[in-house]
């Protein structure tokens, strides 16, 4: 198992190098001079030249890329933000807790609602509950989050005045953004649980379990659910990874100062080090979440555990 984890971590290196290279290339060829974006309209030409020299923006592309990687590897330094002058890592670490909390809440809501709904829908296929759940799942899946977010704000913040419409510093303020962000995940988890359960319920071993007189709750809860969970766990993992990489729209609507907003602002202001650092950070988080999900399989499915050894 340890060997497997180690191998996976080593495999991260080419992935990150690839990501770094892609981002670097894309930003390099994006129009707009970072020196002018940073120093502003009014900057004198000397100031621009000085900045370009100091930041190595005049070096050839590969030299710039090499320098970046070297600093990151040798000193753990992924640059300083052009706009705030603080280290990029520090900026990301200030924003990340917000995103982490937001994603975790959204994911918990998605799991608490999605999995039970999926299971019930599968057991009572074509019942009224199933139909309604599937309609809601469809709505949740197709409703754009910025629209849902605004509706939630209008209803809960403006009409009822129960919850604040923006910010993320109190528990109350976290409810609306988490729910808005969770909507899509709830729908996906519900649909995935349902279809996966439906597949498993028809399997021979379930028939066997029922035939031997096992209680229905155990048949469903143990025999069926555990086998049906693998794709759901994958989905949850992917979703969580995605949420962590910054729910840009949700964070913008509810003014949550998370990674998503940080990235948008960085892109808007041509803050190259910030964008590069941010994307790298997201790539790392995504990979780690994926790794954790793979490890989780082993606990859910003994067959995979055996393979890993």
């Amino acid at each position, binding site marked *: 198992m340890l060997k497997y984890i180690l191998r996976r971590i080593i495999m991260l290196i080419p992935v990150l190098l690839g990501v770094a290279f892609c981002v670097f290339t894309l930003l390099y060829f994006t129009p707009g001079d970072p020196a002018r974006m940073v120093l502003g309209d*009014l900057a004198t030409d000397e100031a621009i030249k000085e900045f370009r020299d100091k930041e190595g923006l005049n070096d050839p592309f590969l030299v710039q890329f090499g320098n970046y990687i070297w600093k990151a590897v040798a000193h753990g330094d992924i640059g300083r933000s052009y706009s705030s002058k603080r280290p990029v890592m520090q900026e990301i670490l200030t924003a990340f807790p917000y995103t982490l909390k937001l994603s975790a809440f959204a994911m918990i809501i998605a799991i608490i609602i999605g999995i039970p709904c999926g299971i019930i829908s599968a057991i009572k296929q074509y019942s009224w509950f199933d139909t309604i759940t599937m309609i809601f799942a469809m709505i949740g899946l197709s409703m754009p989050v910025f629209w849902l977010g605004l509706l939630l704000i209008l209803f809960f913040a403006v009409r009822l005045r129960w919850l604040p419409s923006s910010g993320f510093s109190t528990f109350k303020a976290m409810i609306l953004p988490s729910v808005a962000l969770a909507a899509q995940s709830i729908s996906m988890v519900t649909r995935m649980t349902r279809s996966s359960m439906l597949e498993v319920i028809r399997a021979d071993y379930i028939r066997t379990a029922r035939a031997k007189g096992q209680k229905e709750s155990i048949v469903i809860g143990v025999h069926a659910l555990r086998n049906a969970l693998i794709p759901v766990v994958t989905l949850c993992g992917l979703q969580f990874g995605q949420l962590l990489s910054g729910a840009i729209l949700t964070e913008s609507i509810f003014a949550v100062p998370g990674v998503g907003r940080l990235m948008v602002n960085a892109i808007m202001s041509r803050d190259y080090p910030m964008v590069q650092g941010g994307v790298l950070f997201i790539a790392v988080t995504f990979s780690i979440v994926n790794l954790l999900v793979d490890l989780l399989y082993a606990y859910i499915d003994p067959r995979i555990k055996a393979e890993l050894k």
Partner: protein
Amino acid sequence: MKKFSIIFLALILALSLAGTSLAKDTLVVADQYDATTLDPIGHNDYPTSRACSHIYDTLVFLNHDGTLRPGLAEKWEFLTDKDYKMYLRKGVKFHNGDEMTAADVKFSLERANTPAGSHIHTYSQDLDNVEIVDDYTVIIHLKKVNYPFFSSLVHSWGNIVCKKVVEAAGDDYGMNPVGTGPFKFKEWAKGDHYTFERFDDYWGEKAKFKTLIVRSIPEPTNRTIELETGAVDIAYPVTTIELARIEENPELVLQRKVIPSTTYMGFNVHKAPFDNVKVRHAIHALLDTVNIQRAVFRGVGQTPRSLIPAVTKYSINDDLPAHTRNVETAKKLFAEAGVNPATLKFIIRSNERKERIDMATIIQAQLAEVGIQTEIVQQEWGAYLNVLQQKQHDVFLLGWGLSVPDPDYAVAGLLESNAGTNYTTFDDPKLNEMLVKGRSLPDGEERAAVYKEMQLYINEQLPMIYLHNDEAIAGVRKIVKGFEVDPFEVHSFRGVYFEE
């Protein structure tokens, strides 16, 4: 199920009760963006200028009408036209308890000319050095005559920092600011809000409330909602679509003021046919600029008539007649220039701001009436600036705002030959001369005459067509008193109090 719903209802009730009003000793303000740094020379943007203005003081303060009043400098005299003697206020304390002296002033202003101040070099570049006469007197020496420099001291760059603290903090200073202002730094959750607290040893009138929280809420609708629900007391800026909602709400007050900014359509005057002044005038005659402005901004702002905004001193904006559309005049001018408008074809460029695209669209339609074919190209800001810098463009829409209340800044940055933001490529020795002359004169009638002549000359040359002069609009809760929106957009909360 029943039990669950009872718990659910109880939870909702608890949530709705929690966080009801506390005694009003906190002013909560919603701004569009967060500050980028709290180092006064490390930026040149409005949200940051606003944040710095609470923590720091400048040597001179700016009144809403654009005149100056004493700040950290009690009085001043102009020894020559390049040397300003400033008498500093005595007994002014920094937030760390140290007294502010001439050494801090020298350090603060000279620091702007180091690489750390690259954002604001345009203001500070003519500063030669600051001479310390004694602890409370300094002489500011300039490299060359530049009267607008004195006005620029009210800009964020003129804020006085504590030498000792800045030197000790190094690169991290922007996160741990120490000034002499009415509020001291307490906490900053980047991207979300910053919290300042009243500085009880402030030399001037102390703030009437204890805590100032400024939240950054980029979505305009959200700012309005927070204002409506009472979660914030002042929301700024208010966009056109939100105006009616605030106006109709009896709990809220709308404050509006015209600001010194100009949105214009510039010609690349080095490119045919725009190198012909008659063609520029002909195009102007084709456009109904007054109604374009009205249609797009729906009652906010006005159509400028001069490049120096109406609220800036020496502006002759209000003395000039409004522009009216006249297709016949346009045709005549085209004929005089020997240009057949039906053969004209060019590109109107803009960044992605909706109002600019809207204006460009109407402009396109009005030009099409005489057969001029235009294409509107919109680009993301960085790419747009890049194109303008290459100076190959035809016609473009852009804005220009003044953070320093001197007419020189309204013209020099846009039309002086060597200005980095001169995208019309206007290169006119006569205007350059006028600008130098304007800068070399102290305020008074002679200076006013220079700028009057300059404005008429620019309108005659017409390197750009003026489209819009914006307003600063803030939504304020009725219980908030003593706040007045600042036409220079650096709003002060020094005098704010609550009336419940």
